[in-house]
């Protein structure tokens, strides 16, 4: 007899971070009582408990909250709503029939779910993936891992630090390390601009006199057992190192903040189609993937910058999952949505005709006084102007019912002047 504990459940939410919690809360409020949140850490809140800086909650709560405080709001609400959350467990596989296999010290459980919400978040790009040449000593950390170690595990990663990547995580860690007494010698960025929020440039680098080296990258790591130095080189427009521009910075730690990748290993086990640009699921405006009854939200769908938007998106996913389970899903005619010139990606990937929709997208390059065009084939159906657009900032545009009635497809483009 199989020792696998089989349980039928209406909804499994994978991941108890901000996305999973918001989705579960929303599903409960929309009529689902038989649900469970499964979380691999022994805490709820996902990445937030280690994000001890503030800047969260401005949109939803109109407050400047720290990560742990923002998380606690939803942890408390989930508790009040008596949403079962299993901690310290690992989802091993989701079958195409929505069987969710979960391992924990209590045993191996198979949840036979009617609906699944994917909210597993993302992982960090590693040194190995960007192939930085050099030795493989101790002292090389991705920024998020360093943040976990310093803020949660009470260990300090190093004294003399160089950070590669000027995205928000890199900037935040530059400040964090400096505050705890380390010396951050430079933040090195391969692009000619930073992808982090401008305010983080001020409060993390400028405030502490930490140099930002744009159009530079790390071309070699030195040190046999522990990092001893890194070689930095200037790069050209093609992002290739320019000969003769090498500089060595002595340090004992290299932090990498070189990109986040949605963690869709489980999504592939159940057959969900992924968008190679976002590396997240292809979804419609209900955030339903190509597998009926499987929804995705949060960083696993696409990498967000502001957690408030993760919450809003996940509430939608929870609502949609509830509608699916309760048989209230509306079957409407759908049209495909595509990213055109100058646009990196658009979500959702398909929308219902004749409905009010909010589109989310990112541009490829920064631009001032930009116009975004919404096309149906060759026909321009809508234009929206923006003072400033930046790849680091997700843009939201609402389309009204009338705007989505008579179109057969939709393409979002950055208009040339």
């Amino acid at each position, binding site marked *: 007899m199989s020792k*696998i504990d089989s349980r039928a459940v209406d909804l499994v939410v994978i991941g108890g971070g901000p996305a999973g919690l918001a989705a579960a809360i929303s599903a409960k409020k929309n009529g689902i009582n038989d649900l469970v949140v499964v979380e*691999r850490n022994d805490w709820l809140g996902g990445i937030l408990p280690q994000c001890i800086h503030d800047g969260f909650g401005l949109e939803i709560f109109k407050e400047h909250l720290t990560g742990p405080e923002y998380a606690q709001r939803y942890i408390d609400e989930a508790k009040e709503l008596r949403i079962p959350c299993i901690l310290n467990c690992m989802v091993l596989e989701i079958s195409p029939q929505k069987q969710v296999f979960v391992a924990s010290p209590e045993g*191996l459980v198979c949840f036979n779910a009617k609906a699944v919400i994917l909210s597993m978040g993302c992982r960090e790009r590693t040194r*190995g993936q960007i192939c930085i040449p050099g030795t493989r*000593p101790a002292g090389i950390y991705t920024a998020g891992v360093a943040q976990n170690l310093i803020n949660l595990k009470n260990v300090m990663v190093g004294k003399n630090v160089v950070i590669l990547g000027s995205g928000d995580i890199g900037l935040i860690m530059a400040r964090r390390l400096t505050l705890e007494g380390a010396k951050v010698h430079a933040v090195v960025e391969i692009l000619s601009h930073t992808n982090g929020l401008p305010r983080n440039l001020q409060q993390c680098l400028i405030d502490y006199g930490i140099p930002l080296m744009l159009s530079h990258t790390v071309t070699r790591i030195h040190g046999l057992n522990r990092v001893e130095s890194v070689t930095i080189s200037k790069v050209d427009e093609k992002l290739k190192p320019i000969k003769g521009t090498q500089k060595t910075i002595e340090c004992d730690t290299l932090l990498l903040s070189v990109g986040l990748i949605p963690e869709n290993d489980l999504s*592939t086990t159940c057959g969900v189609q992924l968008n190679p640009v976002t590396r997240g699921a292809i979804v419609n405006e209900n955030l339903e993937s190509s597998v009926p009854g499987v929804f995705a939200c949060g960083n696993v769908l696409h990498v967000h910058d502001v957690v408030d938007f993760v919450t809003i998106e996940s509430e939608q996913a929870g609502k949609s999952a509830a509608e699916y389970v309760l048989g209230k899903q509306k079957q409407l005619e759908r049209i495909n949505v595509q990213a055109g010139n100058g646009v990196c990606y658009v979500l959702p990937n398909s929308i219902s005709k004749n409905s009010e929709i909010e589109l989310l997208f990112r541009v490829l390059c920064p631009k001032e006084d930009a116009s975004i065009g919404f096309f149906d084939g060759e026909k321009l159906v809508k234009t929206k102007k923006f003072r400033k657009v930046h790849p680091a900032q997700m843009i939201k545009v609402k389309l009204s019912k009338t705007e989505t009635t008579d179109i057969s497809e939709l393409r979002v483009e950055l208009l040339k002047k």
Partner: protein
Amino acid sequence: MNRKSDVMIIGAGVIGCAIARELAKFNIKTVLLEKETDVACGVSKGNSGVLHTGLYYPKGSLKAKLCVEGRLMFPELAKQLDVPYSLCGKHVVARTEEELKDLKDLKAVGEGNGVKGLTIVSGEELKKREPKMDGLYALHSPVAGIFPPYLFAIALAENALNNGVKVHVNTEVLGINQLNNHFEVTTNKGVFYTDIIVNSAGLYADKISSMVGLDNYMLYPCRGEYLILDKKCNGLINSMIYPVPPKVAGVLGVHLTPSPSGNILIGPSAEFINSREDTRTTKEKAQQLIEGAKDLMPSIPLNEIIYGFSAVRSKITPPEEKTSRDFIIQEDLENFINLIGMESPGLTSSPAIAKMVVGMIKQKMDLKPDHDFNPIRKRTIPFREVSRDEQAELIKKDSVYGEIVCRCEHVSKREVLDALNNPISDKTLAAVKYRTRAGMGRCHGGFCLPRIVELLKEEYGLSAKEIKLKSLDSTMFIGKTKDLRADKKDE
């Protein structure tokens, strides 16, 4: 500690470990010394993990003889020692008509060395077996295989230890004094005494050899770099894919090697370097590997590269020479057996090398079989390798199996604890990585590193500064979070 032994093996690479295990079958005192914190820290862990056929070595050479013997001994040994492997076979691909001749030559060499089952197949047949490969012809060797070389070395060492061999890591030989009928070996951990020395120190074998005055050996360090593909690429190839070997001594060319874990290795490169410690990866070689891989398989998904590594081989063939020199396995001095230049096929040959060395020792001393010798060694069952039903069973019997520490490789806490409790190495992150695969997945420790750090602190009481990556000097942390501020006075 008893510092006297009958046989001392210097260097716990895979060959040293194989010799230790072979000697464990006898009622003698054997000691295995290793200067690093674990076994297999050199090229034994940084190679392709291939069980070679025996195609490349001249008939009558030690390499040819020991490779074929070692390969035939391997399956039984792997079963006894619980080492995963797969006889996936190998295709050497000819892309031009001229290269067909090279295939025929290789086939002849192989058959001359006693290899059975070699066939040359057409391009169409190759396409059927390997849909991603294009080629005019291919030489197929069905007997070649793949296995994790470090797991093999660890298993050999553990079985040797279980059968009475003393294994000392962090012990570096600094000098050897030849006395009347034994050797006095000075190490950083004090003096040891032994009747017979086996020098399997690999990259440093020339140094050990010169400690007894045999300083005529010249080693040419040659670095091999590799790139690893995400294991989601598993199935892109079913067998090892090699090009026809370039006309450079001892170099097999950039090839694609699958592995039991599902990752595909691209490599190795071959570069003679100045310093034997120089284990870095380089941009130039990574580029070469990428081009070599694209050349072999144009559709190879290079965006799925997850890591690059390198290891330094000890070659005795000077760079200018065209043909690779043979293994040197000889008693250069009474009771002092030198193993020099043990490059490829050193791994495949290791069981046969061990038998040969033990045969040499038998000439010098009475080797009585130990009737209590237990050839069986079991590893902790990897959670990811069993069925869901078996996983449920494992957790029911041992709840620690249910806590998954490494997300990417599904490594359970049971495996991590057993790895940390292993009887040989220091408690390092590398010891866990090589025994369990935790940290080898695509996120490279992104999830498991903080978990393992917490485990080391809570369950083993290690302080922040005591946590090492691999070697004694590879300190991970400078202390606790508040230590830098606590040490500083005025900013």
